[in-house]
């Protein structure tokens, strides 16, 4: 008996459905491409204007006594030092507090305490940075910084740094907690089985096992600290300009604060003036800095995931 030949399009399927599938597929690809386009625009806009900036100024203007953009002084070192100082202060607060909170949540907390602490951290994480800036200016500075250091001025980098620190605590806590929880239970059990206490197990077994995730948390925290604008703009001073300074008890300026203050100046800084273009130059530096940190942090995060 011969095989009954199938109708030519036996397995062709419903053409209307296939057409719809193709259409949906195309729409979705276009959506995904938008994100790439955005990246492209960011890079191009920054590069374009930053280049225009560098062409307009004298390169020696980049190294001077301070950052006074409206006077043509664009000492980036001033801003870099400011960013670093504030970030260091922030990490001195957020690093230990965030990590310890994460350890508590992951290793010590009962489900009931967890259900209290986690919301606290989530609430803190949701607070807009303007509020933290206000808090730094009107509370942290007078009540804490100025009480401890009589020489501190109304605007200073220490208060701003502490504000940024409080802002970052939830971020470091959450990434560290993920890393700690990813450590398999068997490792803890092995340690307990050998007669070790909780402290020892936590500090000598769990934390070292989670170290790449914790490092990632710190790196991402640093990146966030460098990119923070509002707290700095409100509490660190430096609007209009700043001398190069290492003194955290006085005002200072960061990359982000400089951009913000340029844009809010009473004079309508715009167009092709060097001061306007310097916005993008700073933006480019900021972008490169934070991107590098994030890429490194990401590598550490993936390293943690791969181990388990």
């Amino acid at each position, binding site marked *: *008996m011969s*095989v*009954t*030949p*199938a109708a030519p*399009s*036996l*397995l*062709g*399927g*419903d053409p209307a*459905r*296939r057409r719809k599938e193709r259409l949906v597929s195309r729409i979705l690809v276009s959506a995904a491409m938008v994100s790439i386009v955005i990246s492209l625009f960011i890079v191009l806009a920054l590069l374009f204007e930053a280049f225009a900036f560098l062409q307009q100024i004298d390169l020696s203007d980049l190294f001077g006594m301070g950052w006074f953009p409206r006077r043509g002084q664009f000492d980036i070192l001033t801003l870099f030092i400011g960013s670093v100082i504030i970030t260091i202060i922030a990490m001195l607060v957020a690093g230990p507090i965030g990590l310890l909170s994460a350890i508590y949540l992951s290793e010590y907390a009962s489900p009931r305490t967890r259900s209290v602490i986690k919301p606290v951290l989530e609430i803190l994480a949701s607070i807009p940075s303007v509020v933290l800036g206000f808090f730094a200016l009107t509370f942290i500075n007078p009540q804490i910084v100025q009480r401890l250091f009589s020489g501190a001025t109304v605007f200073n980098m220490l208060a701003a740094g502490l504000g940024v620190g409080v802002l970052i605590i939830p971020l470091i806590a959450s990434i560290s907690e993920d890393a700690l929880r990813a450590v398999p239970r068997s490792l803890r059990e092995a340690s307990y089985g050998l007669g070790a206490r909780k402290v020892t197990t936590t500090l000598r077994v769990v934390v070292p096992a989670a170290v790449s995730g914790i490092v990632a948390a710190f790196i991402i925290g640093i990146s966030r600290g460098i990119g923070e604008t509002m707290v700095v703009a409100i509490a660190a001073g430096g609007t209009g300009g700043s001398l190069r300074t290492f003194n955290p008890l006085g005002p200072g300026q960061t990359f982000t604060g400089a951009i913000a203050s340029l844009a809010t100046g009473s004079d309508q800084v715009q167009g092709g003036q060097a001061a306007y273009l310097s916005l993008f130059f700073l933006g480019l530096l900021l972008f490169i800095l934070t991107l590098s940190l994030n890429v490194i942090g990401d590598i550490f995060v993936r390293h943690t995931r791969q181990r388990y």
Partner: protein
Amino acid sequence: MADLPPTTDEPIIRLEDVSLFYSSFRAVRNISYPFRTNAITALIGPSGCGKSTLLRSINRMNDLVPGAYAEGRMLYHGEDLYGPGVDAVEVRRRIGMVFQKPNPFPKSIFDNVAFGPRVNGVKGDMADIVEASLRRASLWDDVKDKLKQSGMALSGGQQQRLCIARAIATEPEIILMDEPCSALDPRSTLLIEELMLELKQRYTIIIVTHNMQQAARASDETVFLTMGDDRAGYMVEAGVTSELFTNPKSQLTEDYVSGRFG
């Protein structure tokens, strides 16, 4: 639903020199076999020998794995399942599948069964189709009063029968079963085996199983696969079940069915 199809001697699916790959790794090598219509054919063999891969290639489920592709031909009513212009979605309507772990949709029992016909363009009242499918899956009496209940509220064995009803609803000619009883208790397993014997009058069944007693009990023909030195699965022997089990031609087959390895 249609009446019983006429019996035929033609194999409903003929595999010709089929090899299956995941990217550059060959998982299954050079399989040729005619699967008899209205029969139950069992695919047996040790773990990792590619039985599931082979089964899933028949309804092109492997297409969903990035990098997976097939060589050779699979002739279904004379047309190559992997030929150009073939819509994999249509293949899956005609060749249904029941999975190892019962996986009903998080929907009502009614909607579970009606889903297949609906997405394939059947419009209008589904009640008849749903009832017929549930009856053929020996589930109608259990659920006829609770069609609106969630499919996931049933017991394991009932869920699997629901999945069978769901697969039947699209009127496939072939039902592929990937170790359908391995997650079930012995009583449910027996129920499903009895069900299979009823179903084969109307459908062709190809079943992957680890359970040799099940293969011996329930199937008409058996295909025995094992893993070669190149880590690809290949067909050692195949044929009528009773002969393969009592009078195997290959020593490997004899070793496997008597439990010496696998």
